């Protein structure tokens, strides 16, 4: 079960979509970056996550909106949030996280538990945790208690779709393999997540 996690903020990713929209919804990735005087590796994290969320499709170095991506940029700020929330729910990362949160004692998870669940091995964990918290909060998938550094589940009608709390805390580090493992098993990807094979070589080329 491969997964990938966000390496840019929701606002940055939205900026990329706005930029793509200025280019009529389809553009060479290098030209997109060039438009903002950025290097390709500076827009790749946003581009990658937009692709994970099914908003953009990258083919032969060219980014283009999916139907959903086009709908998103044509929506209001509030509608965009609702679309992102639904797309995030479909990712392995947030699905796993929300399930763990529902099943956790007092429906709370500390930052450390979060890092364990998504089992970071290759990324600077603090930044990654920060980003995940940021996205989840932005999409209102959970609340965050900054004083206690913990995620708090929100009571939602839609959470009924999650498995009922069984009192069992999911074993950490088994639900989701490390991001690198996702890339290796890309061919076996299920769901809407995508491996990260493209990021690393591209970064290496432009760094």
């Amino acid at each position, binding site marked *: 079960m491969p997964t990938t996690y966000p390496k840019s903020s929701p*606002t940055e990713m939205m900026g990329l979509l706005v930029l793509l929209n200025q280019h009529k919804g389809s553009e060479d990735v290098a030209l997109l970056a060039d438009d903002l005087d950025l290097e390709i590796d500076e827009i790749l994290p946003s581009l990658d996550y937009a692709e994970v969320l099914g908003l953009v499709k990258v083919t032969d170095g060219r980014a283009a909106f999916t139907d959903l991506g086009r709908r998103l940029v044509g929506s209001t*700020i509030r509608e965009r949030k609702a679309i992102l929330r639904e797309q995030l729910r479909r990712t392995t990362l947030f699905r796993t996280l929300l399930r763990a949160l529902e099943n956790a004692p007092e429906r709370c998870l500390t930052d450390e538990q979060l890092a364990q669940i998504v089992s970071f091995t290759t990324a600077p964990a603090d930044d990654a945790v920060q980003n995940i918290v940021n996205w989840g909060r932005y999409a209102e998938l959970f609340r965050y208690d900054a004083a206690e550094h913990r995620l708090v589940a929100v009571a939602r009608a839609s959470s009924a779709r999650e498995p009922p709390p069984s009192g069992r805390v999911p074993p950490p580090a088994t639900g989701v393999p490390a991001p690198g493992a996702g890339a290796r098993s890309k061919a076996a990807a299920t769901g809407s997540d995508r491996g990260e094979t493209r990021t690393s070589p591209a970064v290496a080329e432009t760094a």
Partner: protein
Amino acid sequence: MALIRVEHVDKSFASRHGTISIMQDISFDVKDSDFLALVGPSGCGKSTMLRLIQGLDRPTKGQIYFRDQPVNSVCAQMAMVFQSFALYPWLTVSENVAFGLEALHWPRDRMGPQVERYISVTGLDGFQEAYPRELSGGMRQRVGLARALAVEPAVLLMDEPFSSLDPLTAESLREEVLQLWRDPQLPPEAVVLVTHNIEEAIQLADRIIVLSRRPSHVLAEVTVDLPRPRDRKSESFYALTDRVYSLITEGGAPAPNAPPTPAPSNPSS
């Protein structure tokens, strides 16, 4: 009808080197549902002009009118968004947004729903209880925007609001400001944006007032008649950028006999 009229405004400051003239004989209008940008070299008094418009400071000569009434004190129909966000670190997002309403003595029972509404339209739902330190720059500027919009101003004054954001975040927020301005259900009617970024001005504004170097005067008023979203790589966009650049570089060169600018204080920044 013009929403704001700036008529023959001079502004000078006293310094220990004598009087420094910041701007001379500046006149322009802000029309109903206008998106106006003020551009010019740094130190030309763009930010000072915003303060004069809002009534935070008084012109040395000339007069500014809002809906035909002289602006003689701080105008509650206008709100400002700052480059530095200007949030109170010890207040939560909700409390920061409520701050502008408290200053205007809004009744407590109406304040809550108003704060919620503007937190929601700016995309801050989920961060109500967060403190500014927990937020990225983009989210902080959203708080600045929500706080300004919550008082339902007729005119939103923006002082380099995107300059301290990374390029992608800035791109996103520019588009959101346009979206809010165009929504007839939401304030503001008009936006006055101060920026040193000529491309940003052309990307956002209907009209651009180009100011010269200090003491500044109006070099030109440029109309931007391009459909949105605007493609920065299009020929017509290039042509406008060129035109504004030339205006500033040619018209903004100091006169050969201009007195040297005093180094120690820069009252306009």
